């Protein structure tokens, strides 16, 4: 962290013209190379302009801000923006609400939970239908009816949502194979579809327990879907899954966001064998910061 504070001070001095020429030279080379440092420089520049516009700088500093940061047309526009932002912030037309993390602490509803809800709904529908009207529903027809999402007779005041209705209200992960498998009551000999874990890249830490994900036996691939809300501007990500004991168990760069039905996500397909039971964290390099989400895997044996 110290180097960041040093950079902070260094950049401020640089922008105010307080650095000796050899340090300016070194810093500018670094600024050309290092995108994060460059963005920090731009952020500090904007703060200096805002401080100037608020009259917070002494006369000498104010003069240097004007001459160094607002001498070009673009600089003058930035100064005007800083001034307008100060005014808008001190005199908002609407009172700013308390800020919540830009990314949801938990994507709601999570696909895994949604699937559980869907499966439970279907189960209730089947049990209810069999119980209420055994003569009307032949057991041999149940599976095909569920699979086709057709209506099942239910009692008047207890409407049980049809799976189609559930699908309409809940955004679904894009896994038709998984849907078919979970809708079916009959075990299949085919390879299991990926087990989906949906996570949010929350930056608020410590407030929630680590989520556990039981992975069924026989799963060959685990698909981690990371909610990218708030990070839509970024086009490429580097992601890694790490374990405290085993270090990095999986990583990949150049990952592009995918548009899933519930939003923009980063999809990581990880061989299930790389994720034995234990605690992990998924870390995503999001340009200016590393976003981390811990999770726990429990491998089911049967």
């Amino acid at each position, binding site marked *: 962290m110290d180097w960041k504070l040093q950079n902070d001070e260094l950049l401020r001095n640089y922008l105010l013209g307080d650095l000796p020429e050899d340090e300016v030279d070194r810093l500018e080379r670094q600024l050309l190379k290092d995108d*994060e440092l460059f963005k*920090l420089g*731009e952020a500090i520049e904007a703060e200096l302009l805002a401080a100037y516009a608020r009259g917070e700088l002494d006369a000498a500093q104010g003069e240097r801000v004007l001459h160094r940061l607002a001498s070009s047309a673009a600089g003058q526009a930035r100064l005007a*923006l800083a001034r*307008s932002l100060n*005014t*808008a912030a001190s*005199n908002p037309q609407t009172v*700013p609400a308390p800020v919540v993390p830009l990314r949801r602490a938990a994507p709601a509803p999570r696909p895994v939970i949604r699937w559980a809800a869907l499966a439970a709904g279907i189960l209730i529908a089947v049990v209810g239908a069999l119980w209420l009207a055994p003569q009307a529903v032949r057991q041999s027809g149940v599976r095909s009816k569920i699979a086709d999402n057709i209506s099942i007779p239910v009692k008047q005041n207890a409407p049980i949502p049809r799976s189609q209705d559930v699908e309409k209200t809940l955004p679904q992960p894009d896994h038709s194979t998984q849907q078919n498998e979970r809708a079916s009551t009959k075990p299949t000999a085919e390879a299991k579809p990926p087990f989906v874990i949906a996570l949010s890249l929350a930056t608020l830490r*410590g407030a929630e327990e680590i989520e556990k994900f039981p992975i069924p036996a026989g799963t060959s691939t685990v698909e981690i879907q990371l909610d990218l809300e708030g990070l839509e501007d970024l086009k490429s990500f580097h992601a890694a899954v790490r374990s405290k004991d085993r270090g990095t168990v999986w990583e990949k760069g150049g990952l592009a966001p995918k548009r899933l039905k519930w939003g923009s996500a980063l999809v990581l397909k990880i061989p299930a064998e790389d994720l034995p039971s234990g605690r992990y964290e998924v870390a995503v390099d999001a340009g200016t910061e590393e976003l981390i989400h811990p999770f726990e895997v429990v491998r089911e044996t049967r």
Partner: protein
Amino acid sequence: MTRAENGLPRAIKPPGLTCEGFEALLAQLDSDRERAGERYEIIRRKLVRLFEWRGCDTPEDLTDETFNRVARKLAEGTELRSSDPYGYFCGVAHLVYKEVLRRCSRERRAVEAGGWPSPESPSEAEDPHLACLRRCLDGLPRDQRDLVLRYHQEEGHIQNRQTLARELGIPLNALRIRVHRIRRKLETCVHEGLGH
């Protein structure tokens, strides 16, 4: 920066540079033409900002001049070190800067002579930026709007920012960069809104 149909930045040849010279420059930046174009645009944008930060009021011209000189050197057989092509650009930019320092100084003196905005904010009715900014703020997602406004609140703003960083669970510098990202969106929106 203009973009090609594939969404990637399209490198624009600086004035005063031949097509051959420009292609040779791009070839030194990356063997892949599109990636070279992206790198060129990144270097160009940064050089413009560096010249701005040094107080020059025609940073684009100085950046073009820097590229022209680099391209001429390449045509003469100089090779960019692939490990640090930025260093070479920076060195040439320093030379360009020093050469125009006297001109910049004269410009600075002109600047000092007046015509600059005072730190005091004009009234809302007089500030065309503000009305435009408010429209742009309205176009932001609420969380981003609230974040940028809270960040710029005057009263106790240092503590306010520390509190914000704590609330978001991120370091102060990450907060700064996040706010800066939103500010750049606003900058573009206001720029377009004012018809520049």
